[in-house]
């Protein structure tokens, strides 16, 4: 019988954690989200020495404070799920900062083994580390690794098993603060110990005491479930104030500073630094890509090739798949017609099959290349440079540098753009970015803008619509920034060293993310198109159109049957134009009507695939809120445009 083990990988971002994860699990992975969170959860299994190890890759984080969702998810997992062992992946080239995180794991009483990764990079930077001494000081095994080449991985696994089988005992280093701080922590801990209701909390009491002194809002929230909360919080507040008056700093600063000074002391004892580091190529690349002029030229090139790859690549796949699916559907329809009544055939072919086809031939060809690019951007370290260059501009819409990537992607397809919003740190920023992204005219909307206004009204009018769109995004981004609750924190971001991305990691990330997208988005896309087909067959759409007449004719000044294309446009935005041209000769529309129709197509409800992506990232409530806000906005702007344009 094999023995089951649960092991978690934890560590800072950019330490090569996902490379180690892929080295260990290969293709046995499940990529998903943490329940109810926009945080990627990667889980895999491996078999080693008669053990079945379930490995979970925790998000890359710098601390276990409540700053980001990732940090809360990680510490809750460690404290409440209590994995058998945690592999703390530590970047040898940034040891001091990484040790700050290790100390926090130790404070959580987590059983850890350290994978001292990127030893090659550390050597390049001229940093030599006494691994044995580090292991002695921390009281846990330290295995040097170079994940990208697989060096040290086997030893890491052997060490994990040795610890599990208790052939190697952990004697973890006790994190102890300065005298005054210790006295205060212990006082609070004693008070908590006397509370019988706190006997069964899954977090160590000492850790809770430290977090309460740090005024950790998430821990405070969790404590409120207990009867004694008021009493404990009062004491915590009193003691935190005492701490602050002794040190003259906010209590989180006092504790973090002390933690850092412990990390610094350990670092100085185990590391020696050569005076002359040898990483000239990376330095040159870094200088070029952040240069005041050349950096922007480079960025433009990167974006251009990104677009070419995603959209030209997507177009090619899409063009290849489209006729294939058309003929397939044609064949299927013929088979179905022989066995089923007319209405059922229509439901299946227009609803289910068309939905699947739209998903496969429209969304998927762009999403898979996008995931490749995202993995490359993430793993190479370029994302941080792009954020450096664009931070300024993004501030105008209340976001910071990183938001630039999803925003630009939005001009191609909203679906990968919405998913790309997860590169933002906080839920608040992700939501603002996603909201803004749904307003960016994607390729399908570009078809309508150019095919209707550009062709019949003129190119300047079309460009005018784009300009208007940018102003709208600036205004609404700012508004969302003001309205949404939560505290904005400016750009604070690590700049990782440039690294050659691992092909294996890029491919495996792309594969598992694409698979997950298909599972989540396709049912929604099919359900959406099924619903619209059913509405059409039952005559509900006709009733809807006649009811919408005052809105379409009276408020928007459009011909009454323009409502139908707008309903079907939810499936695919370019359908609005295709159906409109089938219902009304486009030449018969006035310039004003074309502009109003295009404006509405540009802003109203995101397409079904985008809604699916939003649901996947943010849940139904937020996805529907964004959709409703967009519809209301489109109707408002359409109506105003009608009146203003008539007046002109």
């Amino acid at each position, binding site marked *: 019988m094999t023995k089951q083990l649960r092991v978690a990988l934890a560590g800072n971002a950019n330490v090569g954690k996902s490379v180690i994860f892929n080295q260990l699990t290969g293709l046995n992975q499940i990529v998903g989200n943490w329940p109810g969170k926009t945080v990627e959860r990667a889980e895999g299994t491996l078999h080693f020495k008669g053990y079945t190890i379930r490995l979970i890759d925790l998000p890359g984080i710098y601390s276990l404070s409540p*700053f980001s969702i990732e940090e809360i998810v990680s510490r809750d997992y460690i404290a409440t799920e209590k994995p058998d062992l945690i592999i703390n992946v530590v970047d040898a080239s940034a040891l001091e*900062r990484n040790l700050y995180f290790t100390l926090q794991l130790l404070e959580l009483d987590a059983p850890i083994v350290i994978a001292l990764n990127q030893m090659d990079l550390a050597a390049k930077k001229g940093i030599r580390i006494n691994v044995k001494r580090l292991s002695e000081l921390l009281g846990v095994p330290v295995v040097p690794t170079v994940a990208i080449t697989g060096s040290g991985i086997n030893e890491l696994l052997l060490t994990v098993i040795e610890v599990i089988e208790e052939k190697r005992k952990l004697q973890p280093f006790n994190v102890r603060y300065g005298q005054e701080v210790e006295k205060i922590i212990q006082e609070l801990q004693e008070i908590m110990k006397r509370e019988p209701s706190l006997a069964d909390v899954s977090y160590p009491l000492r850790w809770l005491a430290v977090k309460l002194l740090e005024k950790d809002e998430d821990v405070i929230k969790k404590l409120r479930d207990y009867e004694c909360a008021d009493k404990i919080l009062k004491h915590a507040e009193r003691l935190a104030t005492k701490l602050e008056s002794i040190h003259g*700093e906010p209590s989180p600063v006092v504790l*973090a500073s002390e933690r850092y000074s412990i990390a610094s002391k350990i670092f100085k004892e185990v590391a020696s630094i050569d005076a002359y580091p040898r990483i000239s190529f990376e330095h040159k690349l870094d200088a070029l890509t952040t240069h*005041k002029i050349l950096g922007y030229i480079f960025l433009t090139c990167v974006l251009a090739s990104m677009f070419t790859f995603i959209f030209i690549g997507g177009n090619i796949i899409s063009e290849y798949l489209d006729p294939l699916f058309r003929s397939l559907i044609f064949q299927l329809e013929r088979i179905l017609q022989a066995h089923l009544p007319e209405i059922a055939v229509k439901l299946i072919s227009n609803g289910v099959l068309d939905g699947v086809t739209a998903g496969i031939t429209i969304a998927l060809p762009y999403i898979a290349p996008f995931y490749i690019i995202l993995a490359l951007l993430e793993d190479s370290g370029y994302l941080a440079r792009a954020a*450096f*260059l664009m931070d300024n501009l993004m501030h105008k819409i209340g976001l910071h540098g990183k938001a630039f990537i999803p925003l630009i992607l939005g001009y191609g397809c909203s679906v990968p753009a919405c998913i790309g919003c997860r590169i933002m740190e906080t839920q608040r920023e992700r939501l603002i970015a996603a909201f803004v992204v749904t307003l960016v005219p994607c390729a399908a909307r570009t078809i309508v803008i150019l095919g209707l206004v550009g062709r019949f009204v003129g190119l300047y009018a079309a460009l005018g619509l784009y300009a208007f769109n940018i102003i709208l995004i600036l205004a609404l981004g700012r508004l969302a920034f003001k309205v949404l609750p939560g505290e904005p924190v400016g750009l604070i971001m690590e700049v990782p060293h440039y690294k050659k991305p691992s092909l294996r990691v890029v491919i495996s990330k792309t594969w598992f993310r694409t698979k997950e997208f298909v599972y989540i988005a396709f049912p929604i896309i099919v359900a959406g198109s099924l619903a619209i087909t059913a509405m059409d067959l039952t005559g509900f759409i006709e009733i809807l159109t006649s009811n919408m007449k005052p809105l379409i004719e009276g408020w928007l000044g459009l011909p009454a049957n323009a409502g139908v294309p707008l309903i079907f446009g939810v499936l695919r935005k370019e359908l609005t134009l295709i159906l409109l041209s089938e219902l009304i000769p486009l030449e018969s529309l006035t310039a004003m009507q074309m502009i109003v129709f295009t404006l509405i197509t540009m802003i109203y409800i995101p397409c079904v695939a985008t809604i699916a992506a939003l649901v996947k990232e943010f849940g139904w409530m937020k996805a529907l809120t964004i959709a409703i806000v967009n519809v209301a906005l489109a109707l408002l702007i359409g109506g105003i445009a009608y009146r203003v344009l008539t007046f002109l």
Partner: protein
Amino acid sequence: MASREDKKALQGSNKNDGLTVLADVAEGEKCIVVKALGSFGLVRRLTEMGLTPGTEIKLLRKGILGGPVEIEVRGVALILGREVASRVLVKPVKEEQND
């Protein structure tokens, strides 16, 4: 975003003791963190990223038109938005001329 008290603190310190804010340090210069000002969340985050009082920082580069600053702290490169960097009170380090 900057509260009035913060601005006062910044101006006051500018006059008195040769302190400045990180955003005003020149490219290539070094300085020592004195204090991070601003909201609770920001101060905590900066501290966690290693900018604790007394830490030496090197300013690597600045973005154009009020763009962010890139610094080196504890052997790691970090980007801070300009508005973040202008909340970090620092003491410039005078470096010897020939090194």
